[in-house]
């Protein structure tokens, strides 16, 4: 299959390189999908799912019950604030900031410093989630 080297186009003083969607971009996405499938297959093989004990609404939480990995950042925040009402208000506020980000940053600047400033808090959150997941998976076998 023949792929294209792309063509250069001058836009607002900078050179923009363009490619046709097929085959370049489509093949790239297909390769990425294959890689993801392989990763899912490897994770499924290495970490088989075990089923915990049945839920008992009348029992007390015991040692060994693990919180859902996606909740760990909120649990940590709740532990620091010690007030559930304040925690949920802060989480809602952060979620609203996230959704309304374009309204808060209307500068139109795309400098490296500004982009790092915007991306770093979310990067930390993703890394925290990854670590939470790592510590919540069961021991193989």
């Amino acid at each position, binding site marked *: 299959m023949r792929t294209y080297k792309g063509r250069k186009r001058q836009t607002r003083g900078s050179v923009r390189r363009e490619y*046709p969607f097929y085959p370049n*971009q489509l093949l790239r996405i297909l390769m990425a999908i294959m890689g993801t499938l392989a990763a899912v297959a490897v*994770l499924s093989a290495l*970490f088989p799912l075990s*089923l915990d004990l049945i839920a008992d609404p009348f029992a007390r939480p015991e040692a060994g019950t693990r919180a859902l990995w*996606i909740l760990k950042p909120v649990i940590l925040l709740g532990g620091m604030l010690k007030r559930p009402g304040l925690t949920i208000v802060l989480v809602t506020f952060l979620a609203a900031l996230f959704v309304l980000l374009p309204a808060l940053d209307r500068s139109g600047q795309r400098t490296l410093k500004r982009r790092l400033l915007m*991306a770093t808090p*979310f990067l930390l959150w993703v890394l925290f*989630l990854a670590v939470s997941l790592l510590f919540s998976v069961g021991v193989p076998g």
Partner: protein
Amino acid sequence: MSSRERSHHKGSSRSTRDLFGLRGFLFGSADSRASMKGAWEATLRRPVAHSGWSSCFGGIALFLFLIQAATGILLMFFYIPADPEAYRSTLYMAGQAPFGWFFRIIHHWAGIAMMFAVSLHVLRVLFKGAYQDPRDLNWIVGSVLFFLTAGFVLTGDLLPWTRSAYWSAEWWTSLVGSFPLIGHQIMLFLRGGENVTGSTVTRFYVFHVFVLPALSTLFMVLHFAMVRKLGISEPL
């Protein structure tokens, strides 16, 4: 065989091949009925900005959503959303149902992978500054999709009705309940009562398999329509 017969034979074998081949189907049989050739060619030949591998996370997330839908539908054949049948049906799925263990584990890991694919996609958009005008509305639609993905994880976790899932659901619904003024009403709506019970499982099941997929599909259509209109964000 004369040259005319040979060319006729060659032409008929090509038309037979075209009928069963993907290209032949799309540009031949299907196109003669639905006139899709122009649309396909416009899509495939459309120039996109050279943005590298990081632009694939959106496509990966969509693919994982489709995997989740397919495996989820297969799991629905065995799952019963009630207390204690939820746990028993999951146990049956994991141990006795044909390939149940396989679809369950793929559903589990593909769900986690989808959450990370969406997160990395968001990270790319943030780093490229692609949330700014003219893609600001698409950012809002995309961030709603991000929260819907998190909703899938939260509601899906309780469905096996295990001890850990119960306490996780108990904790986060209590947290929602402590929101000033409307929190308690939202908690009652989510739980189907004051406590996490079998009716909570039924509600989370409805959210997980009907409400969230329907909303996600709607927002995805909007998201892709805007990506198609505005294009992939350019490299900086």
